């Protein structure tokens, strides 16, 4: 796949989360869909504003947990009944109450690993390079104290001049072009 070239989008910088959320709501109402907000801490209202309501992390976590549970309980049962049966003080080979504890731990282990790595995978991370880092003011503010809204050029409604005048109407600190 050839590297994309040209304009990635237009990036507006805002001073406060309130301004950002307001602008994001306006953009959504104006029909923009391919856009993203960048904030130095979680701003749930901004995600709502751009129409992002549901994430699949919980589902991944649940599946991982069930897999861990089944894997460890199955392993314990297989070992104790078939692979290596041991008579421990006359207790039954299938001592399921004792098997619950390692199975419980593995449920948590796999659910936790799935939640963490599932979250990264759903976010498309690790991704050391991303066009938004090309915006000259982005790295100075996005992870410290400024709030950004980026309208992306892949949006069917995107038109560079129109998008710029739309963003400038939202009273940002600045609007800059973001190149790939």
């Amino acid at each position, binding site marked *: 796949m050839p590297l994309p070239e040209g304009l990635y989008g237009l990036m507006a910088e805002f001073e*406060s*989360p309130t301004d950002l959320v307001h602008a994001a*709501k*306006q953009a959504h109402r*104006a*029909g923009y869909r391919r856009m*993203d*907000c*960048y*904030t*130095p*801490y*979680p*701003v*749930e209202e*901004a*995600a709502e504003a*751009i129409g*992002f309501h549901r*994430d699949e*992390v*919980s589902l991944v*976590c649940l599946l991982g*947990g069930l897999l861990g549970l089944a894997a*460890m309980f199955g392993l*314990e049962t297989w*070992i104790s009944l078939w*692979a*290596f049966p*041991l008579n*421990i003080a006359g*207790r039954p080979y299938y*001592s399921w109450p*004792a*098997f619950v*504890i*390692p199975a419980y*731990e*593995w449920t*948590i*282990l796999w*659910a*936790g*690993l799935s*939640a963490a790595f*599932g*979250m990264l995978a759903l*976010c498309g*991370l*690790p*991704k*050391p*390079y991303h066009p*938004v*880092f090309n915006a000259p003011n982005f790295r*100075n503010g*996005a*992870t*410290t*104290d400024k709030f950004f809204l980026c309208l992306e050029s892949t949006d069917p409604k995107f038109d560079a001049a129109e998008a710029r005048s739309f963003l400038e109407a939202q009273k940002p600190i600045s609007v800059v072009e973001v190149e790939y």
Partner: protein
Amino acid sequence: MATKDAPVNNPMVDPVTGEYRVIAPGHTFKSVTETVSRIVLTSHTPIGWFFGFALAGGFVMMLLVALTWLFLKGPGIWAVTIPVAWGFAIINFVWWIGIGHAGTLISAILLLFKQGWRNSINRFAEAMTIFAVVCAGLFPLIHIGRPWLGYWLFPYPNSMDYWPQFRSPLLWDVFAVSTYATISVVFWYIGMIPDLGTLRDRAQSKFAQFFYGLLSVGWRGSVRHWVRYETASLLLAGLATPLVLSVHSVISLDFAVALLPGWHTTIFPPYFVAGAIYSGFAMVLTLAIPIRTFYHLEDLITIRHIDNCGKVMLATGMVVAYGYSTEVFMAWYSASHWEYFMMWNRMFGPMGWSYWVLITCNIALPQLMWLRKFRSNVGLMFLMSLIVNTGMWFERFVIVVTSLTRDYLPSSWGTYRATKWDYATFAGTLGLFTFLFFLFVRFLPMIPMSELRLMLPQAKVKEKHEPLPEAGD
């Protein structure tokens, strides 16, 4: 109630609620970011850091010497023998794991309860957890005698056609502790990614940009990512909560499943968990108080935090006291001669002094924390944290040693006197813990900046009054 004690003009007291503030007033997103990130990104490491690091490093060297000698000679260099086959190694293991538990409690349980004050201290409490688990995990490994065969504990296909025995609490420990270590590291790292992104963007040197860039996995603060990140954090907190309760319960089963008087008791799981949190909060204070003074973080780690830690210690200390009283009561109520003798021996036997040290350190002296004046005195709280940590170490000493030295038949009784190698190994792990902590405060953000920003009043999205135009779609 609170305004009565605190001076009215104290800027650290909220005039509306009368409570101590969590963060000093007047901070901005930028100022909290700079306060935290300058500690890491400075090119001038404070001279005190080198001094402390070198001292801790000296203890790590001692640990390495002690371990080398142990691997050459075997566990016979320790005082462990029959009847006390579980000496310092298990005492220290249980003590260190317990210390770790407060970190998980602060990061997970207090997150679920929406206790905003935890945000300043959760990162280094989690680091404390990880380093404590590192020290804890070392002990069973070196106690097994042939540590190079430690992987036999795990179920894996092997040419001996051998598999582990899943009915033993000692094997449950392997899964509990390894899961705990893994989840703690993952929770810590995931929580740190946004802050690593901040450090990447603020770093001046090429190397630091590369290093933090690599660690931050390209975090760019997209709100879509934040939503998933928040879900993952909540899920990890929700998972870590039952995990932390299970870990010390499983460890207590190592004792409770045995038939030894003093060990064979059902109170152990809850009482071990409460004791773990108790000692862990004490360790949080032992670390937080010098750090806030040394790095001038009084604005972010405030009296409120110290006060709250004191309250948690008081509460968990009372649970521990209840555990001790239950042990005494059950020794009498069981009408078992062995239990009765065990309790008498614990209090007045040859090692009775250790029981009274534990009662003094864990129950008597901490009652001072009922006083608000005491809880808001930084120096006294530091002293109290050391006292509680000592007391909790002695609790494990009493449980392990006095129970084992005198069990049933007087002919099988013995005694226990730790050797210099026991002490060197224990002190060495204290050094290792401190050593890792020094590295942590120097190279990683010890206070979560993104969570501090969230706590500032300006972080809230306000309603705009101008009406939005009618939706066009």
